[in-house]
Protein backbone atom coordinates (compact mmCIF):
# COMPACT_ATOMS: atom_id res chain seq x y z
CA UNK A 1 0.00 0.00 0.00
CA UNK A 2 1.38 3.40 -0.98
CA UNK A 3 0.19 6.75 0.25
CA UNK A 4 2.68 9.25 -1.23
CA UNK A 5 6.23 10.25 -0.28
CA UNK A 6 7.43 10.04 3.26
CA UNK A 7 10.25 11.74 5.04
CA UNK A 8 12.31 9.20 6.91
CA UNK A 9 14.30 10.24 9.97
CA UNK A 10 16.06 8.53 12.81
CA UNK A 11 15.34 9.33 16.42
CA UNK A 12 16.12 7.44 19.61
CA UNK A 13 17.76 4.82 17.46
CA UNK A 14 14.54 4.02 15.54
CA UNK A 15 13.48 4.88 12.10
CA UNK A 16 10.38 7.11 11.76
CA UNK A 17 8.38 8.29 8.81
CA UNK A 18 6.33 11.42 8.27
CA UNK A 19 4.19 12.21 5.23
CA UNK A 20 6.34 14.53 3.13
CA UNK A 21 3.43 16.70 2.17
CA UNK A 22 3.02 17.79 5.81
CA UNK A 23 6.67 18.80 6.13
CA UNK A 24 7.14 22.50 5.61
CA UNK A 25 10.88 22.69 5.96
CA UNK A 26 13.96 20.92 7.21
CA UNK A 27 16.55 22.91 9.08
CA UNK A 28 20.06 21.86 9.73
CA UNK A 29 21.94 22.52 12.88
CA UNK A 30 23.45 20.55 15.67
CA UNK A 31 20.32 18.49 15.35
CA UNK A 32 18.19 18.66 12.25
CA UNK A 33 14.66 19.84 12.82
CA UNK A 34 11.65 18.91 10.84
CA UNK A 35 9.13 21.68 10.75
CA UNK A 36 5.53 20.85 10.36
CA UNK A 37 2.75 23.37 10.15
CA UNK A 38 1.94 22.95 13.77
CA UNK A 39 4.90 21.22 15.30
CA UNK A 40 8.63 20.82 15.12
CA UNK A 41 10.17 17.40 15.32
CA UNK A 42 13.87 17.12 16.17
CA UNK A 43 15.73 14.27 14.53
CA UNK A 44 19.01 12.60 15.05
CA UNK A 45 19.42 12.06 11.38
CA UNK A 46 17.40 12.81 8.29
CA UNK A 47 17.49 9.58 6.30
CA UNK A 48 15.75 10.89 3.19
CA UNK A 49 12.56 11.05 1.23
CA UNK A 50 11.01 7.79 0.25
CA UNK A 51 8.65 8.05 -2.70
CA UNK A 52 7.36 4.54 -2.38
CA UNK A 53 6.93 3.13 1.08
CA UNK A 54 5.42 -0.16 1.87
CA UNK A 55 2.98 0.54 4.61
CA UNK A 56 0.46 -1.49 6.57
CA UNK A 57 -2.38 -0.17 8.67
CA UNK A 58 -2.05 -0.30 12.39
CA UNK A 59 -3.37 -3.51 13.85
CA UNK A 60 -4.68 -4.20 17.30
CA UNK A 61 -1.46 -5.79 18.22
CA UNK A 62 0.44 -2.59 17.43
CA UNK A 63 -1.87 -0.69 19.74
CA UNK A 64 -0.72 -2.88 22.58
CA UNK A 65 2.82 -1.46 22.10
CA UNK A 66 2.27 2.00 20.54
CA UNK A 67 -0.61 3.81 22.16
CA UNK A 68 -0.50 6.89 19.92
CA UNK A 69 -2.49 7.20 16.76
CA UNK A 70 -0.43 6.54 13.62
CA UNK A 71 -0.83 5.65 9.98
CA UNK A 72 0.72 2.26 10.43
CA UNK A 73 4.02 0.45 10.08
CA UNK A 74 6.38 0.79 7.16
CA UNK A 75 9.43 -1.02 5.93
CA UNK A 76 12.40 0.63 4.22
CA UNK A 77 15.53 -1.27 3.31
CA UNK A 78 14.29 -4.15 5.44
CA UNK A 79 14.09 -1.81 8.42
CA UNK A 80 10.68 -1.31 10.06
CA UNK A 81 9.45 2.10 11.10
CA UNK A 82 6.38 3.81 12.49
CA UNK A 83 4.57 6.02 10.06
CA UNK A 84 3.51 8.96 12.15
CA UNK A 85 0.27 10.81 11.94
CA UNK A 86 1.17 14.53 11.60
CA UNK A 87 -1.85 15.61 13.59
CA UNK A 88 -1.20 13.18 16.41
CA UNK A 89 2.53 13.34 16.92
CA UNK A 90 3.64 11.75 20.11
CA UNK A 91 4.84 14.40 22.53
CA UNK A 92 7.96 12.33 22.99
CA UNK A 93 9.12 13.18 19.47
CA UNK A 94 8.10 16.80 19.44
CA UNK A 95 10.46 19.64 20.21
CA UNK A 96 10.51 20.44 23.86
CA UNK A 97 10.56 16.85 24.81
CA UNK A 98 10.13 16.16 28.50
Amino acid at each position, binding site marked *: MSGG*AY*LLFRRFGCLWALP*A*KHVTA*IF*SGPKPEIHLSHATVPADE*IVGVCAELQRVNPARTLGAFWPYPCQGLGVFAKEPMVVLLPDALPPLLCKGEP
Partner: protein
Amino acid sequence: MKEQETNWSTVPVFGVVLSGLLGLLGFTGILVGTHYGLPRWILDTYFVVALGILGLYVGVVLQPARRMSRRFARIATHAEKAERAFDHVLKHLQAGDLVAAQEAARQLPPQVAPQFLAASRAVGALVQQILASSVDIAVAGQEVHNTASELASGSSEQAAAVVEITATMEELARTAAQIATNAANQADLAAQAEEAGTMGAAAVEDAVRGVEEVQKRISAIATRADSLGTRSREIYRVLDLITEIAQETHILALNAAIEATAAGEHGRRFSVVADEVRRLAERSRESVESVRTLLEEFSASIRATVVATEESSKEVAKVWERARAAAASIEQLRSAVSETAHAAREISLATQQQRTASDQVVLTLKEVSQVIQKMAEGLKAFSATAERLNQLALSIQLLTQSFHLDSPRSVKHIAQTLADALGSEAGHWEALDSTFTQALKQHRFLETAFLTDPEGNLVAFTVNPDLRLPDTAIPVAVGQNLSERPWFQAVMRDKRTTLTPVYTSLLTGQKCFTVAAPVHDPQGRLVGVLGLDVNAASWTKIVA
Protein backbone atom coordinates in the same frame (compact mmCIF):
# COMPACT_ATOMS: atom_id res chain seq x y z
CA MET B 1 169.22 5.53 132.13
CA LYS B 2 170.85 3.03 134.53
CA GLU B 3 174.09 3.23 132.55
CA GLN B 4 174.05 7.00 132.78
CA GLU B 5 173.30 6.78 136.48
CA THR B 6 176.25 4.38 136.87
CA ASN B 7 178.50 6.79 135.01
CA TRP B 8 177.44 9.62 137.25
CA SER B 9 178.07 7.51 140.43
CA THR B 10 181.44 6.26 139.28
CA VAL B 11 182.84 9.74 138.61
CA PRO B 12 183.68 10.65 142.34
CA VAL B 13 185.01 7.16 143.06
CA PHE B 14 187.26 7.46 140.06
CA GLY B 15 188.41 10.88 141.35
CA VAL B 16 189.16 9.48 144.79
CA VAL B 17 191.07 6.55 143.37
CA LEU B 18 192.95 8.80 141.00
CA SER B 19 193.74 11.22 143.82
CA GLY B 20 194.86 8.31 146.05
CA LEU B 21 197.10 6.97 143.30
CA LEU B 22 198.53 10.43 142.67
CA GLY B 23 198.97 10.94 146.43
CA LEU B 24 200.53 7.48 146.77
CA LEU B 25 202.82 8.21 143.83
CA GLY B 26 203.77 11.59 145.33
CA PHE B 27 204.23 10.07 148.78
CA THR B 28 206.45 7.35 147.32
CA GLY B 29 208.45 10.00 145.52
CA ILE B 30 208.82 12.04 148.71
CA LEU B 31 209.91 8.94 150.64
CA VAL B 32 212.44 8.11 147.98
CA GLY B 33 213.60 11.69 147.95
CA THR B 34 213.82 11.82 151.72
CA HIS B 35 215.76 8.61 151.75
CA TYR B 36 218.20 10.16 149.32
CA GLY B 37 218.41 13.43 151.25
CA LEU B 38 215.32 15.46 150.38
CA PRO B 39 214.26 17.94 153.22
CA ARG B 40 211.49 16.94 155.63
CA TRP B 41 209.38 20.03 155.12
CA ILE B 42 208.86 19.02 151.57
CA LEU B 43 207.30 15.82 152.83
CA ASP B 44 205.10 17.76 155.28
CA THR B 45 204.10 20.28 152.67
CA TYR B 46 203.25 17.49 150.37
CA PHE B 47 200.92 15.92 152.94
CA VAL B 48 199.21 19.23 153.68
CA VAL B 49 198.69 20.01 150.01
CA ALA B 50 197.51 16.49 149.34
CA LEU B 51 195.00 16.61 152.20
CA GLY B 52 193.84 20.03 151.04
CA ILE B 53 193.31 18.80 147.53
CA LEU B 54 191.47 15.77 148.84
CA GLY B 55 189.18 17.88 150.96
CA LEU B 56 188.58 20.23 148.09
CA TYR B 57 187.69 17.30 145.89
CA VAL B 58 185.29 15.84 148.40
CA GLY B 59 183.62 19.21 148.93
CA VAL B 60 183.47 20.33 145.36
CA VAL B 61 183.03 17.13 143.34
CA LEU B 62 182.04 14.17 145.44
CA GLN B 63 179.05 15.62 147.26
CA PRO B 64 177.39 17.16 144.21
CA ALA B 65 178.03 13.95 142.42
CA ARG B 66 176.16 12.02 145.07
CA ARG B 67 173.24 14.40 144.90
CA MET B 68 173.17 14.08 141.15
CA SER B 69 173.24 10.34 141.50
CA ARG B 70 170.19 10.28 143.79
CA ARG B 71 168.37 12.60 141.44
CA PHE B 72 169.17 10.45 138.49
CA ALA B 73 167.91 7.44 140.42
CA ARG B 74 164.53 9.12 140.96
CA ILE B 75 164.40 10.11 137.31
CA ALA B 76 165.20 6.56 136.34
CA THR B 77 162.33 5.27 138.48
CA HIS B 78 159.88 7.71 136.84
CA ALA B 79 161.24 6.81 133.43
CA GLU B 80 160.82 3.13 134.11
CA LYS B 81 157.22 3.68 135.21
CA ALA B 82 156.54 5.78 132.12
CA GLU B 83 158.16 3.13 129.96
CA ARG B 84 155.89 0.46 131.38
CA ALA B 85 152.89 2.72 130.85
CA PHE B 86 153.99 3.40 127.30
CA ASP B 87 154.52 -0.29 126.72
CA HIS B 88 151.03 -1.03 128.05
CA VAL B 89 149.46 1.65 125.96
CA LEU B 90 151.30 0.59 122.85
CA LYS B 91 150.27 -3.03 123.35
CA HIS B 92 146.61 -1.91 123.51
CA LEU B 93 147.14 0.25 120.48
CA GLN B 94 148.74 -2.66 118.68
CA ALA B 95 145.67 -4.72 119.55
CA GLY B 96 143.45 -1.90 118.30
CA ASP B 97 141.82 -1.52 121.70
CA LEU B 98 141.54 2.24 121.86
CA VAL B 99 139.32 2.07 124.93
CA ALA B 100 141.93 0.15 126.92
CA ALA B 101 144.64 2.30 125.42
CA GLN B 102 142.92 5.44 126.63
CA GLU B 103 142.44 3.87 130.02
CA ALA B 104 146.10 2.94 130.14
CA ALA B 105 147.12 6.37 128.90
CA ARG B 106 145.98 7.77 132.24
CA GLN B 107 149.13 6.14 133.69
CA LEU B 108 151.39 8.09 131.36
CA PRO B 109 153.33 11.08 132.62
CA PRO B 110 151.13 14.14 132.92
CA GLN B 111 153.33 15.92 130.36
CA VAL B 112 152.26 13.54 127.57
CA ALA B 113 149.01 11.96 128.83
CA PRO B 114 146.68 14.76 127.57
CA GLN B 115 148.37 14.83 124.18
CA PHE B 116 148.17 11.04 123.95
CA LEU B 117 144.52 11.00 125.01
CA ALA B 118 143.76 13.68 122.44
CA ALA B 119 145.64 11.73 119.80
CA SER B 120 143.84 8.51 120.79
CA ARG B 121 140.46 10.22 120.62
CA ALA B 122 141.43 11.66 117.25
CA VAL B 123 142.40 8.20 116.06
CA GLY B 124 139.09 6.85 117.40
CA ALA B 125 137.19 9.62 115.65
CA LEU B 126 139.16 8.94 112.52
CA VAL B 127 138.36 5.24 112.71
CA GLN B 128 134.69 6.00 113.26
CA GLN B 129 134.80 8.42 110.36
CA ILE B 130 136.47 5.77 108.23
CA LEU B 131 133.78 3.34 109.37
CA ALA B 132 131.03 5.78 108.48
CA SER B 133 132.70 6.53 105.16
CA SER B 134 133.16 2.86 104.42
CA VAL B 135 129.50 2.29 105.24
CA ASP B 136 128.57 5.12 102.90
CA ILE B 137 130.85 3.62 100.27
CA ALA B 138 129.26 0.21 100.82
CA VAL B 139 125.76 1.65 100.54
CA ALA B 140 126.72 3.72 97.52
CA GLY B 141 128.47 0.71 96.01
CA GLN B 142 125.37 -1.38 96.59
CA GLU B 143 123.18 1.29 95.05
CA VAL B 144 125.56 1.66 92.13
CA HIS B 145 125.63 -2.12 91.82
CA ASN B 146 121.84 -2.28 91.83
CA THR B 147 121.54 0.65 89.43
CA ALA B 148 124.20 -0.78 87.15
CA SER B 149 122.46 -4.16 87.26
CA GLU B 150 119.14 -2.53 86.38
CA LEU B 151 120.81 -0.48 83.66
CA ALA B 152 122.55 -3.57 82.35
CA SER B 153 119.25 -5.40 82.34
CA GLY B 154 117.61 -2.39 80.72
CA SER B 155 120.41 -2.16 78.21
CA SER B 156 119.95 -5.80 77.34
CA GLU B 157 116.25 -5.17 76.86
CA GLN B 158 117.09 -2.08 74.83
CA ALA B 159 119.49 -4.09 72.72
CA ALA B 160 116.77 -6.68 72.15
CA ALA B 161 114.30 -3.91 71.36
CA VAL B 162 116.78 -2.31 68.97
CA VAL B 163 117.23 -5.67 67.26
CA GLU B 164 113.47 -5.96 66.91
CA ILE B 165 113.28 -2.37 65.66
CA THR B 166 116.08 -3.11 63.22
CA ALA B 167 114.18 -6.12 61.92
CA THR B 168 111.05 -4.00 61.69
CA MET B 169 112.93 -1.24 59.88
CA GLU B 170 114.35 -3.77 57.45
CA GLU B 171 110.86 -5.06 56.86
CA LEU B 172 109.73 -1.46 56.51
CA ALA B 173 112.50 -0.86 53.96
CA ARG B 174 111.41 -3.93 52.01
CA THR B 175 107.82 -2.78 52.21
CA ALA B 176 108.89 0.70 51.10
CA ALA B 177 110.66 -0.81 48.12
CA GLN B 178 107.55 -2.77 47.26
CA ILE B 179 105.44 0.34 47.71
CA ALA B 180 107.82 2.25 45.47
CA THR B 181 107.50 -0.41 42.78
CA ASN B 182 103.73 -0.49 43.16
CA ALA B 183 103.59 3.31 43.14
CA ALA B 184 105.64 3.40 39.95
CA ASN B 185 103.30 0.85 38.37
CA GLN B 186 100.40 2.86 39.69
CA ALA B 187 101.90 5.99 38.14
CA ASP B 188 102.19 4.21 34.78
CA LEU B 189 98.64 2.91 35.04
CA ALA B 190 97.45 6.36 36.06
CA ALA B 191 99.24 7.88 33.06
CA GLN B 192 97.55 5.32 30.80
CA ALA B 193 94.24 6.05 32.51
CA GLU B 194 94.84 9.76 32.03
CA GLU B 195 95.46 9.21 28.34
CA ALA B 196 92.37 7.00 28.12
CA GLY B 197 90.44 9.64 30.04
CA THR B 198 91.58 12.29 27.56
CA MET B 199 90.42 10.10 24.70
CA GLY B 200 87.19 9.34 26.52
CA ALA B 201 86.63 13.03 27.16
CA ALA B 202 87.13 13.73 23.45
CA ALA B 203 84.74 10.88 22.57
CA VAL B 204 82.18 12.18 25.01
CA GLU B 205 82.60 15.66 23.57
CA ASP B 206 81.91 14.21 20.11
CA ALA B 207 78.91 12.36 21.55
CA VAL B 208 77.69 15.60 23.12
CA ARG B 209 78.04 17.39 19.85
CA GLY B 210 76.21 14.53 18.12
CA VAL B 211 73.48 14.64 20.69
CA GLU B 212 73.21 18.39 20.25
CA GLU B 213 72.89 17.82 16.50
CA VAL B 214 70.23 15.17 17.13
CA GLN B 215 68.47 17.56 19.44
CA LYS B 216 68.50 20.22 16.79
CA ARG B 217 67.09 17.83 14.23
CA ILE B 218 64.44 16.61 16.67
CA SER B 219 63.59 20.22 17.32
CA ALA B 220 63.26 20.75 13.57
CA ILE B 221 61.04 17.65 13.34
CA ALA B 222 58.97 18.90 16.22
CA THR B 223 58.67 22.25 14.55
CA ARG B 224 57.59 20.62 11.34
CA ALA B 225 55.22 18.31 13.14
CA ASP B 226 53.77 21.30 14.90
CA SER B 227 53.44 22.98 11.56
CA LEU B 228 51.72 19.88 10.24
CA GLY B 229 49.41 19.96 13.23
CA THR B 230 48.63 23.54 12.44
CA ARG B 231 47.99 22.61 8.84
CA SER B 232 45.88 19.67 9.99
CA ARG B 233 43.74 21.97 12.05
CA GLU B 234 43.29 24.14 8.97
CA ILE B 235 42.32 21.01 7.03
CA TYR B 236 39.91 20.20 9.80
CA ARG B 237 38.38 23.58 9.45
CA VAL B 238 38.13 23.02 5.70
CA LEU B 239 36.61 19.60 6.28
CA ASP B 240 34.20 21.09 8.78
CA LEU B 241 33.31 23.65 6.18
CA ILE B 242 32.86 20.94 3.56
CA THR B 243 30.85 18.87 5.99
CA GLU B 244 28.74 21.85 6.83
CA ILE B 245 28.24 22.55 3.15
CA ALA B 246 27.42 18.90 2.55
CA GLN B 247 24.92 18.94 5.38
CA GLU B 248 23.42 22.13 4.09
CA THR B 249 23.38 20.60 0.68
CA HIS B 250 21.81 17.49 2.14
CA ILE B 251 19.20 19.52 3.93
CA LEU B 252 18.65 21.53 0.83
CA ALA B 253 18.32 18.36 -1.15
CA LEU B 254 15.86 17.02 1.41
CA ASN B 255 13.88 20.21 1.31
CA ALA B 256 14.03 20.08 -2.43
CA ALA B 257 12.81 16.51 -2.32
CA ILE B 258 10.04 17.54 0.02
CA GLU B 259 9.16 20.38 -2.29
CA ALA B 260 9.41 18.07 -5.24
CA THR B 261 7.09 15.69 -3.48
CA ALA B 262 4.71 18.48 -2.83
CA ALA B 263 4.88 19.38 -6.51
CA GLY B 264 3.52 15.99 -7.35
CA GLU B 265 4.18 14.57 -10.74
CA HIS B 266 5.86 17.71 -11.92
CA GLY B 267 8.32 17.60 -9.23
CA ARG B 268 9.34 14.03 -9.80
CA ARG B 269 12.32 14.97 -11.98
CA PHE B 270 13.28 17.60 -9.61
CA SER B 271 12.90 15.07 -6.86
CA VAL B 272 15.32 12.82 -8.73
CA VAL B 273 17.80 15.66 -9.03
CA ALA B 274 17.28 16.57 -5.44
CA ASP B 275 17.77 13.01 -4.47
CA GLU B 276 20.91 12.87 -6.58
CA VAL B 277 22.14 16.07 -4.99
CA ARG B 278 21.35 14.60 -1.61
CA ARG B 279 23.31 11.47 -2.51
CA LEU B 280 26.24 13.62 -3.67
CA ALA B 281 26.01 15.55 -0.48
CA GLU B 282 25.87 12.28 1.34
CA ARG B 283 28.87 10.97 -0.55
CA SER B 284 30.64 14.26 0.04
CA ARG B 285 29.91 13.93 3.68
CA GLU B 286 31.05 10.33 3.61
CA SER B 287 34.21 11.36 1.74
CA VAL B 288 34.74 14.12 4.20
CA GLU B 289 34.32 11.62 6.96
CA SER B 290 36.83 9.38 5.24
CA VAL B 291 39.19 12.28 4.86
CA ARG B 292 38.49 13.27 8.43
CA THR B 293 39.23 9.74 9.52
CA LEU B 294 42.43 9.74 7.52
CA LEU B 295 43.20 13.20 8.76
CA GLU B 296 42.57 12.11 12.32
CA GLU B 297 44.88 9.19 11.79
CA PHE B 298 47.33 11.63 10.26
CA SER B 299 46.84 13.99 13.17
CA ALA B 300 47.18 11.14 15.58
CA SER B 301 50.39 10.22 13.82
CA ILE B 302 51.53 13.82 13.97
CA ARG B 303 50.60 14.01 17.63
CA ALA B 304 52.39 10.75 18.20
CA THR B 305 55.31 12.18 16.27
CA VAL B 306 55.15 15.36 18.31
CA VAL B 307 54.93 13.36 21.52
CA ALA B 308 57.70 11.13 20.30
CA THR B 309 59.83 14.10 19.34
CA GLU B 310 59.07 15.73 22.67
CA GLU B 311 59.98 12.55 24.46
CA SER B 312 62.98 12.16 22.19
CA SER B 313 63.87 15.75 22.87
CA LYS B 314 63.55 15.11 26.58
CA GLU B 315 65.55 11.92 26.27
CA VAL B 316 68.10 13.70 24.13
CA ALA B 317 68.19 16.47 26.71
CA LYS B 318 68.72 13.85 29.38
CA VAL B 319 71.34 12.16 27.22
CA TRP B 320 72.93 15.53 26.67
CA GLU B 321 72.88 16.24 30.40
CA ARG B 322 74.25 12.81 31.07
CA ALA B 323 76.84 13.23 28.38
CA ARG B 324 77.78 16.59 29.88
CA ALA B 325 77.88 15.02 33.32
CA ALA B 326 79.88 12.14 31.90
CA ALA B 327 82.22 14.63 30.25
CA ALA B 328 82.58 16.51 33.53
CA SER B 329 83.07 13.22 35.38
CA ILE B 330 85.60 12.09 32.83
CA GLU B 331 87.33 15.44 33.17
CA GLN B 332 87.30 15.14 36.94
CA LEU B 333 88.37 11.53 36.63
CA ARG B 334 91.13 12.53 34.27
CA SER B 335 92.17 15.29 36.65
CA ALA B 336 91.98 12.88 39.57
CA VAL B 337 93.92 10.30 37.60
CA SER B 338 96.47 12.97 36.74
CA GLU B 339 96.74 13.91 40.41
CA THR B 340 96.89 10.22 41.25
CA ALA B 341 99.69 9.73 38.75
CA HIS B 342 101.49 12.74 40.21
CA ALA B 343 100.87 11.47 43.74
CA ALA B 344 101.98 7.99 42.75
CA ARG B 345 105.20 9.38 41.32
CA GLU B 346 105.71 11.41 44.48
CA ILE B 347 104.92 8.32 46.56
CA SER B 348 107.39 6.36 44.52
CA LEU B 349 110.07 9.00 45.07
CA ALA B 350 109.15 9.36 48.74
CA THR B 351 109.19 5.63 49.31
CA GLN B 352 112.54 5.38 47.54
CA GLN B 353 113.84 8.10 49.83
CA GLN B 354 112.16 6.30 52.72
CA ARG B 355 113.92 3.12 51.73
CA THR B 356 117.24 4.95 51.65
CA ALA B 357 116.44 6.55 55.00
CA SER B 358 115.33 3.18 56.37
CA ASP B 359 118.60 1.64 55.25
CA GLN B 360 120.46 4.42 57.00
CA VAL B 361 118.27 3.97 60.07
CA VAL B 362 118.99 0.24 59.99
CA LEU B 363 122.71 0.93 59.83
CA THR B 364 122.38 3.46 62.64
CA LEU B 365 120.31 1.03 64.69
CA LYS B 366 122.91 -1.65 64.22
CA GLU B 367 125.54 0.77 65.44
CA VAL B 368 123.23 1.73 68.32
CA SER B 369 122.74 -1.96 69.08
CA GLN B 370 126.49 -2.47 69.17
CA VAL B 371 126.88 0.59 71.38
CA ILE B 372 124.12 -0.66 73.69
CA GLN B 373 125.70 -4.09 73.84
CA LYS B 374 129.02 -2.52 74.67
CA MET B 375 127.29 -0.31 77.20
CA ALA B 376 125.59 -3.37 78.69
CA GLU B 377 128.93 -5.13 78.91
CA GLY B 378 130.42 -1.98 80.44
CA LEU B 379 127.54 -1.79 82.89
CA LYS B 380 128.07 -5.41 83.84
CA ALA B 381 131.73 -4.66 84.42
CA PHE B 382 130.69 -1.53 86.26
CA SER B 383 128.29 -3.61 88.34
CA ALA B 384 131.10 -6.02 89.13
CA THR B 385 133.29 -3.08 90.04
CA ALA B 386 130.54 -1.74 92.28
CA GLU B 387 130.24 -5.16 93.87
CA ARG B 388 133.98 -5.17 94.44
CA LEU B 389 133.67 -1.66 95.85
CA ASN B 390 130.97 -2.92 98.18
CA GLN B 391 133.19 -5.80 99.25
CA LEU B 392 136.09 -3.40 99.68
CA ALA B 393 133.92 -1.14 101.82
CA LEU B 394 132.94 -4.16 103.87
CA SER B 395 136.61 -5.05 104.25
CA ILE B 396 137.30 -1.49 105.36
CA GLN B 397 134.49 -1.78 107.88
CA LEU B 398 135.96 -4.98 109.16
CA LEU B 399 139.35 -3.31 109.35
CA THR B 400 137.82 -0.47 111.32
CA GLN B 401 136.14 -3.05 113.49
CA SER B 402 139.59 -4.32 114.40
CA PHE B 403 139.64 -1.23 116.61
CA HIS B 404 137.80 -1.49 119.89
CA LEU B 405 135.95 1.80 120.09
CA ASP B 406 133.67 3.09 122.76
CA SER B 407 130.85 3.16 120.23
CA PRO B 408 127.64 1.17 119.74
CA ARG B 409 128.80 0.63 116.18
CA SER B 410 131.82 -1.28 117.34
CA VAL B 411 131.11 -5.02 117.35
CA LYS B 412 134.20 -5.47 119.50
CA HIS B 413 132.68 -3.10 121.99
CA ILE B 414 129.39 -5.03 121.86
CA ALA B 415 131.19 -8.36 122.29
CA GLN B 416 133.42 -7.05 125.03
CA THR B 417 130.48 -5.48 126.89
CA LEU B 418 128.55 -8.77 126.70
CA ALA B 419 131.68 -10.71 127.72
CA ASP B 420 132.15 -8.43 130.71
CA ALA B 421 128.53 -8.98 131.70
CA LEU B 422 128.97 -12.74 131.39
CA GLY B 423 132.23 -12.57 133.35
CA SER B 424 130.58 -10.75 136.20
CA GLU B 425 128.11 -13.64 136.44
CA ALA B 426 130.67 -16.38 136.03
CA GLY B 427 129.47 -19.55 137.68
CA HIS B 428 125.81 -18.52 137.33
CA TRP B 429 125.20 -19.18 133.69
CA GLU B 430 121.84 -20.91 134.04
CA ALA B 431 120.09 -18.11 132.13
CA LEU B 432 122.54 -17.76 129.28
CA ASP B 433 119.91 -18.41 126.63
CA SER B 434 117.72 -15.54 127.85
CA THR B 435 120.77 -13.27 128.05
CA PHE B 436 121.78 -14.24 124.52
CA THR B 437 118.20 -13.90 123.26
CA GLN B 438 117.96 -10.44 124.73
CA ALA B 439 121.27 -9.45 123.13
CA LEU B 440 120.20 -10.94 119.77
CA LYS B 441 116.93 -9.05 119.86
CA GLN B 442 118.80 -5.87 120.72
CA HIS B 443 121.27 -6.38 117.88
CA ARG B 444 119.29 -7.86 115.01
CA PHE B 445 122.34 -8.13 112.76
CA LEU B 446 123.64 -10.94 115.02
CA GLU B 447 122.84 -14.39 113.69
CA THR B 448 124.01 -16.37 116.71
CA ALA B 449 125.54 -15.94 120.14
CA PHE B 450 127.51 -18.73 121.76
CA LEU B 451 129.91 -19.44 124.62
CA THR B 452 132.63 -22.01 125.08
CA ASP B 453 134.64 -22.94 128.13
CA PRO B 454 138.44 -22.36 128.05
CA GLU B 455 138.87 -25.82 126.50
CA GLY B 456 136.63 -24.93 123.58
CA ASN B 457 133.60 -27.02 124.57
CA LEU B 458 130.36 -25.35 123.54
CA VAL B 459 128.39 -24.27 126.60
CA ALA B 460 125.54 -22.37 124.99
CA PHE B 461 124.42 -21.65 121.44
CA THR B 462 121.48 -19.36 120.69
CA VAL B 463 120.12 -18.46 117.22
CA ASN B 464 118.48 -15.11 116.60
CA PRO B 465 114.71 -15.83 116.81
CA ASP B 466 114.07 -13.35 113.95
CA LEU B 467 115.71 -15.82 111.55
CA ARG B 468 112.94 -18.35 112.32
CA LEU B 469 115.17 -21.32 111.57
CA PRO B 470 114.29 -24.84 112.64
CA ASP B 471 116.47 -26.53 115.18
CA THR B 472 117.55 -29.03 112.54
CA ALA B 473 119.30 -26.20 110.71
CA ILE B 474 121.66 -25.52 113.63
CA PRO B 475 125.05 -26.93 112.58
CA VAL B 476 126.54 -27.37 116.11
CA ALA B 477 125.42 -28.83 119.41
CA VAL B 478 126.14 -28.02 123.00
CA GLY B 479 129.15 -29.96 124.21
CA GLN B 480 130.81 -29.97 120.81
CA ASN B 481 134.47 -28.99 120.95
CA LEU B 482 135.25 -25.90 118.90
CA SER B 483 138.84 -25.44 119.95
CA GLU B 484 140.01 -25.80 116.35
CA ARG B 485 138.01 -22.83 115.23
CA PRO B 486 140.18 -19.84 114.21
CA TRP B 487 138.31 -17.37 116.41
CA PHE B 488 138.84 -19.58 119.50
CA GLN B 489 142.50 -20.00 118.79
CA ALA B 490 142.93 -16.25 118.15
CA VAL B 491 141.30 -15.37 121.47
CA MET B 492 143.33 -17.96 123.33
CA ARG B 493 146.49 -16.72 121.65
CA ASP B 494 145.98 -12.94 121.93
CA LYS B 495 143.83 -12.91 125.08
CA ARG B 496 141.69 -10.18 123.58
CA THR B 497 138.67 -9.59 121.37
CA THR B 498 139.24 -10.64 117.76
CA LEU B 499 137.47 -10.59 114.42
CA THR B 500 137.50 -13.24 111.75
CA PRO B 501 137.53 -12.54 108.03
CA VAL B 502 134.20 -12.68 106.20
CA TYR B 503 132.99 -16.18 105.42
CA THR B 504 129.76 -17.86 104.32
CA SER B 505 127.45 -18.68 107.18
CA LEU B 506 126.50 -22.36 107.52
CA LEU B 507 123.29 -21.20 109.10
CA THR B 508 121.98 -18.70 106.56
CA GLY B 509 124.27 -19.16 103.60
CA GLN B 510 124.97 -15.40 103.66
CA LYS B 511 128.21 -13.59 104.30
CA CYS B 512 129.09 -13.15 107.94
CA PHE B 513 132.02 -12.80 110.32
CA THR B 514 132.59 -13.81 113.90
CA VAL B 515 133.65 -11.54 116.72
CA ALA B 516 135.06 -13.45 119.70
CA ALA B 517 135.91 -12.04 123.13
CA PRO B 518 137.52 -13.60 126.17
CA VAL B 519 135.32 -13.88 129.27
CA HIS B 520 137.10 -13.20 132.55
CA ASP B 521 135.68 -13.67 136.02
CA PRO B 522 135.97 -10.88 138.57
CA GLN B 523 139.31 -12.34 139.63
CA GLY B 524 140.61 -11.93 136.07
CA ARG B 525 140.69 -15.63 135.24
CA LEU B 526 139.70 -16.76 131.73
CA VAL B 527 136.45 -18.67 132.14
CA GLY B 528 135.24 -18.82 128.57
CA VAL B 529 135.16 -17.44 125.06
CA LEU B 530 132.14 -15.52 123.76
CA GLY B 531 131.35 -15.69 120.05
CA LEU B 532 128.96 -13.58 118.02
CA ASP B 533 128.19 -14.33 114.35
CA VAL B 534 127.48 -11.03 112.58
CA ASN B 535 125.47 -10.98 109.35
CA ALA B 536 127.50 -8.66 107.14
CA ALA B 537 124.65 -7.27 105.04
CA SER B 538 122.31 -6.64 107.99
CA TRP B 539 125.16 -5.20 110.02
CA THR B 540 126.04 -2.80 107.20
CA LYS B 541 122.41 -1.66 107.01
CA ILE B 542 122.21 -1.25 110.79
CA VAL B 543 125.44 0.68 110.88
CA ALA B 544 124.31 2.84 108.02
